Structures are given as C-alpha cells and as structure tokens.
C-alpha cells in the first residue's frame, strides 16, 4: 500500500479525497469473491437492523392520535 497521500496514483488520491477508506478496498481485494459477498450481506443485515430500530424509536416517540 502506498505510504503517503502525495505518492498515491491519481485514482487512489481522488478516491481518498472523496472520503473513501482505501484500507477497506485493499482489505476487500485480499478476499475471495464469496468472502466479499458474505461481508456485504453482514453489512446489509446490520443496516437493516439499524433502520428497524430507528423506525421503532420514531413510532414510540410519535404523539398519540387520540390525545
């Protein structure tokens, strides 16, 4: 992995400036395609759970219509 921002090839420099975590990309490139998919589905499931929790929280805090 290149050591400093200045020594990065243009595409990596641009990605880094866009806020992309390059270490995550190197990490994923070291995985097999199936391992990349498994990681993706774990992440997707976590996001799904967070969304459900946020929705439950909004429902709890919503003023009652009969009040």
């Amino acid at each position, binding site marked *: 992995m290149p050591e400093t921002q200045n020594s990065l090839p*243009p*595409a990596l420099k*641009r990605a880094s400036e*866009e806020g992309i975590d390059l270490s995550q*990309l*190197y990490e994923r490139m070291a995985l*097999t395609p199936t391992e*990349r998919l498994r990681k993706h589905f774990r992440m997707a499931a976590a996001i799904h759970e967070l969304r459900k929790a946020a929705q439950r929280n909004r429902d709890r805090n919503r003023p009652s219509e009969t009040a």
Partner: protein
Amino acid sequence: MTETDLQKLLKALHQEQVEFVIIGGLAAVLQGSAYVTADFDLCYSRKKDNLEKLARALASFHPLLRAIPDRVPFRLDLSALRSGMNFTLATDVGDVDILGEVTGMGSYQQVEAFSEVMEIFGINCKVLTLEGLIKAKRALGRAKDLRILPELEALAEIRKVEKKN
C-alpha cells in the same frame, strides 16, 4: 436479499444453465467495492432457448413486475420476455432486475465481452469487470452511479498495480 436468497437464485440459474452476467451493485461488491445494495441485477442473453431457461429458473421464485401498481397478474414466460427487454422484478428472494440491454454497453454479447468468471458459493458465474462497471456507470450518469465511480477507479488502479507486481 440475503446470502441464502442469492445462493438459491444462483443455484437455480446454474441448474438451468442460463447465460447471464452479474452486473450492477452486486458486481461492484464482487469486484471489491464497499457499496451496499439490496437487489440483484443481471444481463441475460436473448437467444430463444436462454429466454426459456431464464423463465424456468425464475418461476419458482414467483416473479412479479415491481413497477406496476397493485401487482397486476404477470407470468414471466417466453412470450413476456420476448415482448420486453429490461424487467424489474419482485421475487420471493428479493428484487431481481433482468436486463437484455445495458446502457452504455449494449446487449448480452457486448456485456459478456466485459465479464470475467468468478466462483461464487461454489458456482462459476460471469461478473462484469471493473472496466465494464466504470463504462456502464459513466454512461448511466445518474448521481448514484457517479458517486461510486471514484471507488471503482481506485479498485481498478489497485488491481493494475497488483498485476504488475
């Protein structure tokens, strides 16, 4: 779509020997992207026997058209596939988009030229290359497509350097 859903879908497509290329967000994930997507996009060959195989492979997942309100009765068969090109489907295993043509690339033959074989859950599948993904995303040009471009270009650069070493 879950990991199990995708396994079921790939198994069905493989059993029927459907000619297809995995494209879109899941292709990006397979190429190393951290992008998170909920659907499965594929580009399929429009040869008659392939349309029949595709219809058979998807039948057990009860596909319905996603874009049509109230889910009007729909049967994904040879006739339906012949009368359309790109279908956005809701199925028992999640959203599945089947494309006969891909913007910026063309038909299955052109997409296949930008594909590589990857082993996924023990099944050999054709997946759109980083080069193909970049070409398609640039051509689509929507905000969500352009957002992922810097990451895809970075992955292509990493792969280029890795090949050199």
